């Protein structure tokens, strides 16, 4: 059990630090995982140099999807948009510190997919954003 539900995941799921809305914001994007109905919306505030100054997420879903969103936002504040574009799936897996099968991988990567689609200004998010 400890493998999949490490304390850090349960903690971020139960007491997320970055859940909520950010008004006004500069970037917003939302997407769902059609298989399980996980839903994540992310809002970012960006300064004139392209540095992320604040971030929030909202949505619903399993502990992995929600905790990974919280951990991800914590990790990007202070980063530039260009740096965020470089983030890959390993970044999220390192934050979670667990190994995941193919089904739960989609839950874990939803927030990164949403974040990158927003930062790139895309019309829709697809899995190529979070390929290895």
């Amino acid at each position, binding site marked *: *059990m400890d493998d*999949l*539900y490490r304390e850090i995941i*349960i903690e971020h799921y*139960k007491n997320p630090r970055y859940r909520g809305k950010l008004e006004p914001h500069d970037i917003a994007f939302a997407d769902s995982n059609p*298989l*399980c*109905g*996980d*839903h994540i919306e992310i809002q970012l505030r960006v300064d004139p140099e392209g540095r992320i100054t604040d971030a929030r997420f909202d949505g*619903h*879903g*399993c*502990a*992995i999807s929600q905790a990974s969103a919280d951990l991800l936002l914590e990790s990007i504040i202070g980063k530039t948009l260009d740096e965020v574009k470089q983030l890959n799936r390993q970044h999220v897996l390192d934050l979670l510190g667990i190994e995941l099968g193919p089904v*739960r991988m989609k*839950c874990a990567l939803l927030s990164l997919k949403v974040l990158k689609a927003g930062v790139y200004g895309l019309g829709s998010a697809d899995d190529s954003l979070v390929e290895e």
Partner: protein
Amino acid sequence: MPFDVLRVRQDFPVLGREVRPGVALVYLDSTATSQKPRQVLEAMDAFYRRSNANIHRGVHTLAEEATAQYEEARARIARFIHAPSPRQIVYTRNTTEAINLVAYAWGRAFLKPGDRILLTEMEHHSNLVPWYLLAQERGLTLDFVPLTDDGHLDLEAYRQRLSDAPRLVAFTHMSNVLGTINPAREMIAQAHQAGAIVLLDGAQSVPHFPVNVQELDVDFLAFSGHKMCGPTGIGVLYGKMHLLEAMPPFLGGGDMIKAVHLGSFVPNEVPYKFEAGTPAIAEAIGLGAAVDYLEQIGMEAIAAHERELTAYALERLEEVPGLHLLGPQAGEKGGVVAFTLDGIHPHDIAQVLDHYGIAVRAGHHCAQPLHERFGIPATARASFYLYTTREEIDKLVEGIYQVKKLFG
């Protein structure tokens, strides 16, 4: 012979395995697919080891044996659902393909713009999307029978919708989420009175209780081999003979033709005109063995075992604080229990249960409109079959308490 679940379990090799060292498998996901008894595995293995050949066209010994076994299986399946003739058993890949076959071949030939199709809010996506596609193509109108809060079809609303004279009514015999067993016989009679033909989705009924197509007077029945102890890749469409005969072919190719000339063809007779190309021969033979197996144990006995388990499961689960069950009371439903736990996502329930070797499903179970009706994105679902035991339900309940402890 009295029903003995422990002896039944001996027939299913996979039930003896551990998921991880020291953690026995508790398989509660038979609604998605059933496990397979060795009788089925051995029938398929014997076919490949001894008689493997393509069917119908060959005259050599192996081709004769393969054809005979393939057609014998069809005859057994026909007997199993009390079809008047084996010719009314069309082999498909699964329930989904059987429904698509009707939508494609019957629907395109006989429905015209403005015609109505009546569906229900509890359907599996496979009994929705084929009709949505057809409706888009042909300009049809779709109506839906609503659900009551306790998970039954609203039969008063059903009768009202029938007065709009739908051409086709398609509904599930048993819900794969709520477990609701619909009063098919009465519903079919009412549909016929209104001038509609009826397709019954038997994916969850044919595996779990006796289904008699003549008593039901149903026009089409679709079901899947893999949910009734058979292999994947084989399913069935039963149809009334005059309907099957009037329908144009489905896929084109070998076996579905009587003759092919340059620029024209003569379709084969029923059921072959719907079975283009080399079919799933070993799988059909495996399904024949599955039907034998179920009959030998007895569908009444299987249904009684599942009724008892379901009543026990509902009683145990109702005790769990914060657990909400979907669907009807015991006695009104089959062996499926879908539930939610306050504040815990179904995925997390399923994941923690897996840690204890317990296999349940989490999600919308291909019935998203049903979940929207109840205002929830997903449920966890445990389902039972002839090999499920009370001890496994006890383990499920213990596991749920562990889930609550972890997230509490």
